[in-house]
């Protein structure tokens, strides 16, 4: 039976929703003010709508097909699942993207796919769609392509020329978990593919002897996704992996996706409530790693068993465990230390630094600068504020943690 476009869209967007990434930021700036094309990219992404799961819709996130020859236990599209299957033709994807874009529904396309026939064939079809959009439709919006592991390097190179961002999901935090739940995937080839993208990006920045630049390669970089809570890995393992991915392959983002129930689940992986708070804490820790100068050991060393504290954010948990460093004199403390004060963000710290050159700071000033003083109060001193014994008080943790709850007796 032939499926209509609407039915295909339903199946193939349903299959794509487990990919957390929907960012449209980064990439080179371009527009269509010349009237010869469609679309623009300003560097900062736009979220065009939000679904009730709190995730933004920035890109048209679909699979080219959800037929797949792999059997990954956590995935709704695995070969052993009875989910309905469909496949878009390249023309259908192109027309959906263009029509949605013209009505200002989306920033561009995020195309992923199940593996059909062979990795090369799948990647070739995806590159074909990107080529049609860029060359025939003169589309200048955002394109995010998922790279298929094991696809030929030439195809990845071609994909990098059309797409703003490439991504490949590591999916699970350890080799053992991949072997158990995604037996056909090989973590080493995934890392090699990331290395290829990194090398492609580095090569596209080299000018030739005449000063000419080679074409841009995946200007918005690459990202990846890890499923949290499907296997037994702790947060230290997950963050350690993320840290090494950021360092080794210059990833722009690592997405953490709480393992959430899928239709027609595998007997290998029992369904649980998705660990949403844990996912949130991992993102907070990820930011501390990238922008606040924390190391993985510092963040995960605070609690037992290498997991993050679910009751409070990792920075606050760290500060409470290291009260010897506090309270800090905001007027004189270094940037590195100010960044470690709970309730101070990068922007607040920059404002503090630029203002304190001119005058003494007061409590009300910090309020106006956007600091969260409820959190910061015990850890700072100012001209008109001293935390007194608050910093070392025994119940400091209890002030921030949610009140204990009586467990259900039944």
């Amino acid at each position: 039976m032939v499926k209509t476009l609407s039915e295909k869209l339903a199946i193939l967007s349903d299959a794509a929703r487990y990919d957390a990434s929907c960012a449209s930021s980064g990439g080179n700036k371009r527009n269509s003010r010349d009237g010869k094309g469609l679309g623009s990219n300003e560097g900062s992404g736009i979220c065009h709508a939000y679904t009730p799961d709190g995730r933004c819709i920035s890109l048209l996130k679909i699979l080219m097909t959800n037929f797949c020859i792999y059997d990954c236990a956590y995935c709704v599209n695995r070969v052993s699942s009875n989910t309905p299957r469909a496949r878009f033709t390249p023309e259908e994807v192109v027309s959906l993207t263009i029509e949605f874009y013209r009505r200002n529904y989306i920033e561009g396309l995020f195309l992923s796919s199940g593996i059909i026939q062979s990795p090369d064939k799948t990647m070739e079809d995806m590159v074909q769609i990107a080529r049609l959009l860029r060359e025939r439709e003169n589309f200048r919006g955002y394109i995010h392509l998922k790279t298929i592991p094991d696809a030929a390097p030439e195809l990845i190179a071609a994909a990098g020329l059309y797409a703003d961002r490439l991504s490949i999901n590591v999916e699970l935090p350890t080799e053992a978990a991949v072997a158990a739940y995604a037996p056909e995937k090989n973590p080493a080839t995934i890392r090699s593919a990331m290395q290829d993208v990194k090398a492609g990006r580095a090569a596209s920045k080299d000018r030739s002897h005449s000063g000419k630049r080679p074409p841009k390669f995946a200007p918005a970089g690459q990202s990846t996704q890890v499923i949290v809570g499907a296997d037994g890995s702790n947060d230290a393992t997950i963050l350690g992996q993320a840290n090494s991915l950021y360092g080794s392959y210059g990833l722009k983002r690592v997405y953490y996706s709480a393992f959430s129930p899928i239709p027609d689940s595998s007997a290998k992986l029992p369904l649980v409530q998705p660990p949403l708070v844990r996912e949130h804490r991992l993102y907070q820790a990820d930011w501390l790693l990238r922008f606040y100068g924390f190391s993985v050991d510092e963040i995960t060393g605070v609690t037992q068993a290498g997991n993050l504290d679910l009751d409070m954010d990792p920075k606050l948990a760290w500060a409470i465990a290291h009260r010897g460093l506090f309270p800090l004199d905001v007027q004189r403390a270094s940037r590195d230390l100010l960044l470690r004060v709970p309730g101070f963000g990068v922007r607040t710290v920059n404002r503090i630094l630029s203002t304190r050159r001119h005058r003494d700071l007061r409590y009300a000033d910090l309020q106006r600068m956007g600091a969260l003083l409820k959190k910061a109060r015990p850890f700072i001193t100012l001209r008109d504020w001293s935390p007194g014994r608050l910093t070392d008080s025994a119940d400091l943790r209890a002030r921030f943690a949610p009140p204990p709850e009586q467990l259900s007796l039944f």
Partner: protein
Amino acid sequence: MRTIALPRIGTAQAWRYAARGLLAEDVRPEDVLWSFDDPAQVDLFAAQPRRKTTPAQVTVPKSFVDMANRVVWHSDDDRFARLYTFLWRLRDTPALMQDRGDAQLSHLRRLEKNVNRCAHKMKAFVRFRDLSATGPRRRFAAWFEPTYHTVEPTAPFFAKRFGDMDWMIVTPGVTARFEDGRLSFAPGQARPDLPEDATEELWGTYFCNIFNPARVKVQAMTSEMPRKYWKNMPETRHIPQLLANAEARARQMQEAMPTLPPLRAERITASLADLRATATRDSLETVNAQIRSCTRCALCGPATQAVTGEGPRDAALMVVGEQPGDVEDRTGRPFVGPAGQLFDEIAAQAGLDRQATYVTNAVKHFKFQQRGKRRMHQAPNQGEVQHCKWWLEAEVALVKPKLILAMGGTALLALTGTKDGILKRRGQVEDTAYGPVLVTLHPSYLLRLPDASLRAAQTELFRADLAQAAQRARLVA
């Protein structure tokens, strides 16, 4: 008292011009009354005869001009007066722009933030409908109700984005039109009757299916997509239905019993396994393929790839190094980093032909510590060397070299069981279970020597060791 009337269209420029004139005439902020889009007030430019001389140059930080250009679009009645009051202070103390704790500045910044957010939401939430025009350019129109006066500053964004079509954004205050590449503004209108657009159905289908019913976070949605925008967005009519069914759908997924895989699954999985089994042919290739998928120790996790040996499989000489470095890990080839290049250089001087040599490492994965963006080399420990010895033995058994050159402590440890006294043992041939092993230091040792004369002496010794290896290999070959 001076009254300045500012128009609805072109507000930013009018305010700037007026403020410049007032400053030039030294008019104090408390002596100015500002009015906005007031039909009772006469037009600014008509009322005051244009001065013959341009107003005196006023210098303010660029950051103020950028801020003022946003704040004027707010709907706060005091915005013009606040801007001018701040500008008055700024004249004497330009550093005021950096004082983020200043009450007046922080109020203006808040207004600016409101306007920016409103403009951003307008970029996100305007929904065009197709007017099905027959001309060469397609025509679209949208009805939108912004919180502040953000149509004029945001319209250029749409002009850049939708350059190849004609469009119109109608709002209660201002209407923006883009026709044949020209952007124009007109007074606002009442809500027009736009024709139905079939694509909205498809968009609704997408919106419903991209939603994951197992993770409901209504507050995360409404904080970014406030309800006031919902009435002009076609997809939002599905939200109540989605929320009502979410819990039941999630529960249903959890309670459903696992089903039997479809028939094709077994066939596909089996053929995939066949494909993998036949992928390797020759025995050294088999070993190398197995090395690439090795997970015997923890080093495989962070490293990019295993680096296998390289060279003719009937080589008389086998060179064993420590482990791949950063460059080798990225390229997948042994001895191509700084130490490898040094080895090549000295080997060439010593008459050792690398092309005729099988080069490999005692440990196949790169061990490192991540420090920011740098990967700092770490020596492999006993356990890792032991795990990897399995592969080294397999390589030795297949290549059957007449002589093995062990470079550095790790190679020595793997081949002889101990690395103690390496400085005394260097330059000598030891008999081992793998055949004769010539001991020398690792070339990276030379790279780390700070003293030039010491380095020259050690390089000379290393060259002599390589020459000896080359000579012995030639003799037995």
